[in-house]
């Protein structure tokens, strides 16, 4: 099924910025898994009406039949690589990929070159996002200078900058020094910030190449034990509780981590957590022929972990899905496993993987997907205009998703500059048909506008 | 139609071979082997016995008592024949005759045309072949390529005084300038026929079978009627 765009007045859809849009007959997720079919009228960047009413005069009409309308997706964990590694990704290419994946906001991770540890760098990234215009770009600030783990970066200056940083992370590295972590957690309270921890005990993971278990034992690859993640999460939950701060845990990957988070939340600790799409689907036995497409940090774990992560995301122990979109040039993966870069692209496959692993399994309904992929990450990142319900008066950030088609992943079709997907040739459900950023289509008919 | 007919069954190592059925049982039939029900026996057990006895006597005559001979069979059935000949000669002369086996797999000129295969056994008598008169023994002489390979193999093992060739069946169609010194039976054949020697030690009975080649175009049947895997 193709979804055509026509205008009532005959004006060209692509020309200029349409002030009015009429989405006809899309399905809006409601409570209890119900889907309500309605027309969505968009005017001046906001949702004007959700009703049975027909299109207003001069509105661009979008056929929404068979499509699910979701609030625009928000990613808490995106590597846009600019500045420094523009050969892998740029803010422009990464946000194009985001829009294609149904995202209207992404958080750009700080491990660029130079590191986003000053107001200057985060403002540069923020400005590049504004200029590209495919989705909102909210820079994540580094916790420590140069992500070196020894001295705090100027967190306040980044918070006060135009980039309005609220999420701080040394992602790629763990803030392993307990005292430094405590201070960071305390310090960001002043501006309602959150420390997003990459939980990896460094001594336990020296030279680590993959999940430590039966597969690593057979393959002779140095193991990345689950306990190295769980020990840090447990410590940080205790620290966050002690100082009364917000903690966010990046890319939770083990069943034990889910247990610790469940316990911490039950005690009222202000901890939130994310899981990546790949950790919801893939397992460490894929490593068996040493294809670096499956090399990622934290590593792919076991089927038991995957089940625990799905259950944790379903019951809210894990608050949200974040892509950890990590583009790498071809040569970074065309090597021996041990020398290959860690990471996978994920923006353009995230919603389909969540559909496959959470919706088709009955673990989440579409309202749950809206919560985990839009509302929750927006709340964690303190984004006021993202992750809002599809109701009159709200900003018109939304995604139209066709759940019906199934297709094999073809990296050549990616908008991202990089192709390092672990889903090559895998059949995934669904397709993002349209993405609206404040009422303006960034994607229509599955194509970038 | 294979480009290069050769004379004997493909040698196969003693370990990879399906064990032969007990002596006196029904004829053995290995996997992939042609059905011999349509085959015609051109020599039966007594014919083969007589032929070998005659060859044994000819060897003794031509080698003036065979005092320095070594019989080397080419696996698989050539080895059986060499052992039988050695026993015949011993019966006549009252002294043991050194005999052994000479595997030619690594010297074949058609190695690249077929999958690598298990090796047969090479086992020389303790005194070796230097200065001796070596009689190569095989079951069927066809293109001559196996004998060519055997001569090469022998050259790498030592320097015999002379080399002769004993064969149970010569079916003609030589592709190389090679002839046998001792022949059990000359058997004119067409290239559309296969010749198969069965020996009790290997196959449960003694016979030489003549059969039509299974003539399915493109089926890739090999010269001895076996599928090349």
């Amino acid at each position, binding site marked *: 099924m193709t979804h055509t765009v026509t205008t009532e007045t005959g004006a060209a859809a692509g020309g200029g910025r349409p002030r009015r849009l009429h989405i006809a007959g899309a399905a809006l997720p409601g409570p209890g898994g119900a889907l309500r079919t309605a027309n969505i009228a968009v005017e001046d960047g906001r949702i004007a009406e959700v009703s049975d009413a027909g299109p207003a005069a001069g509105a661009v009409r979008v056929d929404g039949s068979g499509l699910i309308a979701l609030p625009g997706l928000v990613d808490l964990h995106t590597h846009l690589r600019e500045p420094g590694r523009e050969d892998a990704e740029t803010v422009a290419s990464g946000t194009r990929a985001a829009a294609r994946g149904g995202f209207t906001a992404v958080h750009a991770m700080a491990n660029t070159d130079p590191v986003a540890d000053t107001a200057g760098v985060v403002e540069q990234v923020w400005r590049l996002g504004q200029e590209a215009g495919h989705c909102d770009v909210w820079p994540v600030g580094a916790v420590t200078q140069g992500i070196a783990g020894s001295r705090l970066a100027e967190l306040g200056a980044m918070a006060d900058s135009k980039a309005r940083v609220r999420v701080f992370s040394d992602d790629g590295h763990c803030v392993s020094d307990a005292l430094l972590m405590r201070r960071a957690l305390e310090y960001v309270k002043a501006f309602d910030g959150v420390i997003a921890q990459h939980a990896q005990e460094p001594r336990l993971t020296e030279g680590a*190449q993959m999940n*430590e*278990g*039966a597969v*690593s*034992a*057979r*393959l*002779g*690859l*140095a*193991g990345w*034990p689950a306990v190295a993640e769980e020990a840090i999460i447990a410590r940080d939950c205790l620290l966050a509780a002690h100082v009364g701060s917000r903690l966010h845990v990046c890319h939770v990957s083990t069943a034990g981590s889910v247990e610790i988070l469940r316990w911490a939340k039950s005690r009222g600790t202000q901890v939130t957590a994310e899981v990546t799409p790949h950790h919801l689907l893939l397992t460490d036995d894929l490593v068996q*022929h*040493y294809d670096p497409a499956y090399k990622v940090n934290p590593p792919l774990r076991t089927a038991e972990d995957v089940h625990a992560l799905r259950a944790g995301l379903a019951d809210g122990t894990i608050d949200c899905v974040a892509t950890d979109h990590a583009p790498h040039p071809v*040569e970074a993966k*065309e*090597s*021996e*496993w*041990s*020398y290959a870069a860690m990471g996978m692209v994920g923006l353009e496959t995230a919603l389909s993987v969540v559909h496959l692993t959470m919706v088709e399994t009955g673990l989440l309904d579409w309202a749950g997907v809206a919560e985990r992929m839009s509302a929750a990450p927006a709340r964690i990142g303190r984004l006021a205009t993202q992750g809002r319900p599809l109701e009159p008066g709200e900003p018109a950030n939304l995604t139209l998703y066709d759940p019906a088609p199934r297709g094999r992943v073809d990296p050549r079709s990616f908008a991202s500059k990089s192709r390092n997907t672990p889903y090559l040739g895998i059949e995934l459900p669904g397709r993002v048909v349209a993405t609206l950023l404040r009422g303006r289509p960034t994607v229509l008919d599955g194509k970038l506008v | 139609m294979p480009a290069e007919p050769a004379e004997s069954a493909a040698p196969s*190592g003693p*370990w*990879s071979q399906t064990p032969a059925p007990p002596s006196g049982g029904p004829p053995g039939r290995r996997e992939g082997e042609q059905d011999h029900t349509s085959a015609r026996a051109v020599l039966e057990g007594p014919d083969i016995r007589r032929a070998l006895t005659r060859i044994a006597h000819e060897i003794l005559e031509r080698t003036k008592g065979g005092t320095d001979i070594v019989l080397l069979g080419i696996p698989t059935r050539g080895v059986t024949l060499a052992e039988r000949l050695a026993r015949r000669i011993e019966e006549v002369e009252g002294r043991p005759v050194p005999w052994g086996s000479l*595997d030619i797999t*690594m*010297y074949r000129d058609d*190695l*690249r*045309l*077929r*999958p*690598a*295969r*298990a*090796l*047969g*056994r*090479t086992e020389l008598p303790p005194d070796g072949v230097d200065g001796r008169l070596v009689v190569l023994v095989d079951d069927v002489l066809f293109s001559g390529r196996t004998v060519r390979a055997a001569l*090469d193999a022998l*050259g*790498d*093992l*030592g320097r015999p005084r002379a080399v002769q060739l004993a064969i149970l069946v010569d079916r003609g169609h030589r592709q190389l300038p090679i002839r046998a010194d001792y022949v059990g039976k000359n058997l004119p054949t067409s290239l559309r026929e296969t010749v198969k020697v069965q020996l009790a030690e290997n196959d449960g009975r003694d016979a030489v079978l003549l059969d039509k080649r299974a003539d399915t175009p493109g089926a890739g049947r090999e010269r001895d009627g076996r599928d090349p*895997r």
Partner: protein
Amino acid sequence: MLHLISAADLSHSDAVLILDTAEELAQVGDRSVKKLPTLRGRTVVNLFFEDSTRTRISFEAAAKRLSADVLNFAVKGSSVSKGESLKDTALTLEAMGADGVVIRHNASGAPYRLAEWVRGSVINAGDGTHEHPTQALLDAFTMRRRLGRLADLRVTIVGDVLHSRVARSNVALLHTLGAQVTLVAPPTLLPVAVETWPCEVAYDLDSALPKSDVVMMLRVQRERMQAAYFPSAREYSRRYGLDAERMARLPDDAIVMHPGPMNRGMEIAAEVADSPRSTIVEQVANGVSVRMAVLYLLLGGSEPALGGGER
């Protein structure tokens, strides 16, 4: 099976075929002409990213005895940051028309990557801490020659199993061949999940020795104690080293093996290494025969002779 990368890929019949072929080829070393024409016109490249003169010479001798052309390609200090990538090296080998590539690499799994980029057969001559299948084959060959069988043979492998490609290949191959393997090591030098391997695990060498037909001592690097795998060389040697006194606990016909190079005085005492029970010198000679067999069976025909058997 085009490549030999993991001993676990060998079926029982493949493994037996290799050992039987090696048995025949072992004679070549005793002949006046120590050469067979079998691989004439074929090119075998020894691609060594890690120094190992012993293994390289063994493969080189094997290939040359089969009349192959041998090219030695040593890459020093391999890493993506320095010099040529594995892929570019592979493309170079392709251009040279390599029929077989023997690869030694410090990164586990490198042969699998190489196999994606070359058309010829890839033979793993040791990759990181993964596998060293021809070493396991020559060990099995040596055991069968000395003890006459492999089925139900009790083999005890002692030492740094965690970092040992020899141990991984031996466990897989010996299991396939019906032997009973016991690993003996300090728990720090056994991989997590070793209980998923087809073998027994023990921590006490003295109680394992009387039940061993073969004891295989693995090399232990002294540097391991810096990473807290064991407190000191002296303590390691006392608990897991094989000296004459311990050797006396072995059954009368039991043999002692070591893949080399040895740390005399660390995992093995000099009087053990030089005793008649020791097969260490034979292992070297057997290595050539086994590698000839592998080269012949992979490169000798129109297609490889391995991989056709039952699993």
